[in-house]
């Protein structure tokens, strides 16, 4: 069903709450997009309501009336993330197989430092006294070899309730093959303590490897109650103001889900914020004909990088967040401490370092004039002339260039015996290299050649640096989307509904039982359908099947899509899938072995509720000359020699305008640096497309 085409007055709203700003994108039925930002608030729902009032005002509507005409709100929220980062989650108890209650503390032996004995243990989100082993055991085939001791379960649940837990996580060995004991325990908890948040591993992540499963299940129990509470409150506030549509939440996997499922699977919402940006990038890439993208988003404290291949964002199951292992498939977003607020410092060996410590948004960089004295990346960018002290955030904030210079002089230039400009250049060079290495981490380390990707830059300063990463990595095109400052909110409003199901099934690929596999896929599809709910906003459903394969003996598996034209996987489909596995293995690891037996480990299924495409507004190309948007010239440093660069007001640039670097484009919420010899063109959608000259091999 297409909800927007019939009713022209219906609105859809994407809302992304970040650390500093709450971003909103409103989409009307005719493809018109409107966006704004408002400061985030300690209780994020207040910022959300402020933002809605602000955007309604911009559209000349009264808030209640506007909300009553919103059919859909999609929300990117960091509530679950912050709960885990700040360790402010629920008091959680764990029930697990007797004899195995310490796996969460063992972490398979993993430590973040391989040298320092001084690194302390992670904060225990479930301390040992709240982890209780209960008698029960399955074997590797899922057979019960020790019956569940229900008396012991009851006793344990009562103990935990007396201790005041707000959530119980349950994780038994081999429950991914046979969930009967976990399901029974869940039932018993619901009888003993109705209303308690229960998280069982066979529902959260029915996948082999007990540590990964227990960690993910515990994190789900730890963050679930807070997210559930927040979403219910938000929905109530929205309803009170007249909203009668559906409220969805952006998921870590790049799809959206209703709030009931999101609350149950909070561990799947830990990347709810940044996932929107990656999703939006894929959406924009499709419109402008770039299906292979590297996306970068530079915020105040961090720099997020992700890869999109053939319009599909890369996924990973290898994440650690806040020192806890989350094995749910999520967008593979690699984060490094290279944001605008990242602090530059000289270490005891005389080496310049940038980050990971950040001045954050408060006091922020020295140039914010709020008492920060340490030099940051933003300070260096200001000193080098990339930023305009009078037009930061559209002029909402004045920057203090003298304070930036002083900070750089004291902390970098003097210790290293450099001039302030040299020191700022050095800061810029180091942070650029950190960024380039972050991109290498998600490309070359994963077997992708960055040269065949375009670089899509978002965030306030992503486009200040992107030209450098493009040169470093041999990338020929940089895309700065028109909606760069609110990219995540745009992703929220444009994403499809998505449910990911997973089942472990361990067998040799050449002896596969296709009937059993097809039965499992059917079961997974049904489960996914139920979780998707009404799916009212979807125009059609799409099922994608995958299988995790590896050579016998390998422990890491590769997810390979199964290409079927029907709902059944045939022998031929399976053969083709295995052939593709060998190729992917070669790409990732530089060798393949077609004679080695291949093992199946997991089956995966994505059910997508595909939503109607957002019709983006397009304008024909006009004059090439950008003179009408030029606001002046200023001195900019790309090396020790000063360069005069033209400065443009990006909000006045029109499709067809062509700018040859060096130049700076200042637009609301973002600054674009067009490096010497780079060429920037405004495309029909208002995106800034920068072409980089391909260096000769061995050049520079």
């Amino acid at each position, binding site marked *: 069903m297409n909800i927007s085409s019939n009713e022209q007055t219906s609105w859809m709203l994407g809302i992304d709450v970040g650390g500093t700003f709450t971003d909103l994108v409103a989409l009307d039925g005719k493809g018109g997009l409107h966006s704004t930002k408002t400061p985030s608030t300690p209780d994020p729902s207040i910022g959300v309501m402020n933002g809605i009032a602000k955007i309604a005002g911009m559209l000349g509507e009264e808030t209640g009336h506007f909300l009553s005409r919103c059919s859909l709100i999609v929300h990117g929220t960091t509530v679950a993330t912050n709960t885990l980062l700040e360790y402010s989650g629920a008091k959680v108890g764990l029930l697990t197989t007797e004899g195995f209650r310490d796996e969460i503390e*063992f972490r398979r032996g993993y430590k973040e430092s391989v040298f320092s*004995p001084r690194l302390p243990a992670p904060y225990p989100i479930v301390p040992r006294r709240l982890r209780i082993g209960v008698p029960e055991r399955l074997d590797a085939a899922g057979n019960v070899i020790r019956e569940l001791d229900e008396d012991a379960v009851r006793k344990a649940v009562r103990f935990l309730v007396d201790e005041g837990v707000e959530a119980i996580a349950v994780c038994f060995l081999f429950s991914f093959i046979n969930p009967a004991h976990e399901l029974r325990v869940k039932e018993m908890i619901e009888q003993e303590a109705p209303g308690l948040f229960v998280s069982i591993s066979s529902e959260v992540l029915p996948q082999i490897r007990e540590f990964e499963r227990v960690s993910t299940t515990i994190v789900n129990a730890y963050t679930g109650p807070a997210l559930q509470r927040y979403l219910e409150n938000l929905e109530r506030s929205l309803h009170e103001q007249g909203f009668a549509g559906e409220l969805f939440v952006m998921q870590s996997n790049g799809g959206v889900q209703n709030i009931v499922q999101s609350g149950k699977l909070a561990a799947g919402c830990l990347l709810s914020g940044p996932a929107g940006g990656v999703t939006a990038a894929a959406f924009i890439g499709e419109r402008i004909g770039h299906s292979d993208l590297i996306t970068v988003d530079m915020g105040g404290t961090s720099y997020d990088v992700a890869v999109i291949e053939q319009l599909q964002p890369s996924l990973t199951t290898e994440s650690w967040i806040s020192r806890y292992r989350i094995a749910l498939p999520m967008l593979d977003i690699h984060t490094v401490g290279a944001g605008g607020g990242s602090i530059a410092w000289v270490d005891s060996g005389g080496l310049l370092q940038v980050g990971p410590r950040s001045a954050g948004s408060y006091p922020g960089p020295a140039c914010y004039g709020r008492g920060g004295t340490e030099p940051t990346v933003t300070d260096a960018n200001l000193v080098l002339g990339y930023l305009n002290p009078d037009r930061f955030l559209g002029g909402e904030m004045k920057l203090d260039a003298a304070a930036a210079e002083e900070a750089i002089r004291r902390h970098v230039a003097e210790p*290293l015996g450099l001039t302030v400009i040299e020191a700022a250049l050095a800061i810029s060079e180091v942070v650029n290299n950190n960024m380039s290495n972050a991109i290498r981490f998600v490309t070359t380390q994963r077997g992708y050649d960055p040269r065949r990707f375009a670089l899509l830059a978002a965030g306030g300063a992503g486009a200040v640096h992107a030209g450098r990463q493009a040169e470093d990595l041999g990338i020929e095109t940089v895309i700065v989307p028109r909606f760069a400052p609110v990219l995540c909110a745009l992703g929220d409003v444009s994403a499809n509904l998505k449910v990911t199901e997973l089942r472990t099934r361990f067998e040799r690929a050449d002896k596969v039982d296709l009937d059993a596999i097809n039965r499992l896929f059917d079961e997974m599809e049904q489960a996914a359908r139920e979780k998707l709910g009404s799916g009212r906003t979807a125009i059609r459903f799409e099922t994608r099947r995958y299988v995790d394969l590896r050579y016998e003996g*390998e422990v890491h598996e590769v997810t390979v899509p199964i290409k079927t034209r029907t709902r059944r996987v045939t022998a031929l489909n399976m053969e083709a899938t295995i052939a593709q596995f060998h190729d992917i293995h070669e790409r990732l690891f530089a060798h393949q072995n077609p004679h080695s037996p291949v093992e199946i480990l997991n089956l995966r299924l994505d059910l997508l509720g595909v939503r109607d495409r957002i019709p983006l507004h397009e304008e024909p190309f006009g004059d090439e000359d950008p003179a009408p948007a030029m606001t002046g010239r200023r001195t900019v440093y790309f090396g020790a020699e000063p360069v005069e660069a033209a400065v443009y007001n990006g909000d006045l640039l029109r499709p067809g305008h062509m700018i040859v670097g060096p130049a700076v484009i200042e637009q609301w919420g973002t600054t674009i640096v067009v490096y010497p010899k780079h060429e920037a063109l405004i495309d029909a959608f208002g995106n800034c497309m920068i072409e980089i000259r391909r260096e000769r091999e061995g050049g520079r």
Partner: protein
Amino acid sequence: MANDWNKRILSQVVGGTLDSVAQEMSAVVTRTSRSPLFNEAHDYTTGIFDLHGNKSRLVAQAPGCTLHLYAVVSAVDRLVEAFRYDLHPGDVLLVNDPYYGGSHSLDWTIVTPVFHGRKPVLLPAVRSHMGDNGGPVAGGYNPRSRDIWQDGLRIPPIKLYERGEKRRDVFEMILGNNRLEHWLEGDLDAMIGACRVAEERIRTLLERYGGDQVREAIDSRIAYTERRVREEIGSWPDGTYTAETFADHDFQGRRDIRVKATVTVKGSDLHIDFTGSSPQVSGFINSPLSNTTSFAFVAVSTCCDEDIPINEGYMNPVTVTAPLGTVVNPKLPAPCGHATACVGAEIAEAVLLALAQCAPERVGVNAHKLPLAYSHGEYEDGRPWVNLNFFGYTGGAGAAYGTDGWGLYPPVMTGVILPSIEMTEYQYPCRILKHEYREDYTGPGKWRGAPGLEVKIQHLAESRTSVMMAGVRNTIRGFCGGGNGPANQVVINDGQPGAMDVPETVFDYPMPPNGIITFQRSGGGGWGSPLDRDPEAVLDDVRNGYVSVDGAFRDYGVIVREDGKGGYRLDADATEAHRSRLKESKRK
């Protein structure tokens, strides 16, 4: 000046890129190797070397199993020495001989030269613990070994590929001498694949910056590391500090084998002298000089800041001497199959105990003192399996200044990732019955060691098990007044007919189907006096079952009482009185 900052920044760029290449190599090995030692346990390390005159230098490395870290340096050196005038693009070199810069012959080192123009410039290398190494015993640990040939296959520097051509005959010779032929080829492919990936990245780097610039950048990065390490050593008071520690036995009847370290700090130089250590022994615990140096460096590394890039610069301020013919520098053909555990652990322990006298707040890592046990049998189809019973002995993290030990292994071992229980039960005919911390089974201290473990493993099929005990007579040591760990214990056929409480070593002990092997694995050593531990922390330990009420009294002088509601409370006054009495009587 402008030129100077450019160069300095360039060294950072090139160095950072080489580090990321070493990490990429590591990712390739993990994901594509076949034997659980690689892919589950990560018992390998990757590094990049350059050629500096006739010597190779470590330029960058990725954290894997740090115990390989410096052994790989001398192995690469020997390989370069052997093929100095016979290196060609496409060559792949291999060595495992402990007397050619190795540690024990289970650790194999693969190196490929990367050329710039006509010269070999950089050398990516992978060093790994292989699943088997031929020889008399599956899995390679042969406690009856009397010489290096009884440790397993001895491979001097050889070429596996010459100018890109696979030497099929050499491969066949190696595969034909290995029980895990089906894994070995995949593992070698993974190691070589990692080097090939590195080769491509390094070539791009050389093309982009040119050989001279890359060389300068590497020099400056090595100098940087050296500066940082010298700064750390320079902050320790000058003097000579001596400590000794003992290995329980050599598995062939000789007991209490001494490792003695005399550490001299002079300005920013550190000299470690192992004079006074026991003569070499007939059992397989002898540590070749490269292994000894490796463990000494690892001990020093744990005392430095961990953000210092690991490269040749780490080694420049430190010198190591060990008299030939001792257990820490044996003469050919002394066996050394067990050296990476014993006396490797004692070497690191002796160095740290000496350093504790001048840098008490920096030391903390404990020796691992593994009660190593491996079982072997056959799958139903007749193929052999070797199960290293990792769950049984992985543990023993010690305390450090400011923090309790935690998790399982001490940090230097934690590149090593424990397999998953579920995956293990799929892959081997075994069942893990228990894998949990054990109460009161660690070194107490102001900061205590990580709790010890109780582990029960059942082998479903008929099997044979060999156990090499360690840490029984000479347990894991505490530092600066912290308590030592308790004794390790292993029982084969626990609670079953034929039960055997392993005294020092057993070899191929028969276990009937469903035989159970039980491990009581010591936790780590403590740091500082247990009487100085915060009583609230002790109470917390009691609540969490790490320490019993009796243990709190006995080990910490803390009086914890039951609160009558099923919980516990601290008797602060009684504790204070009791502790001051204890301290008083100690002073007397």
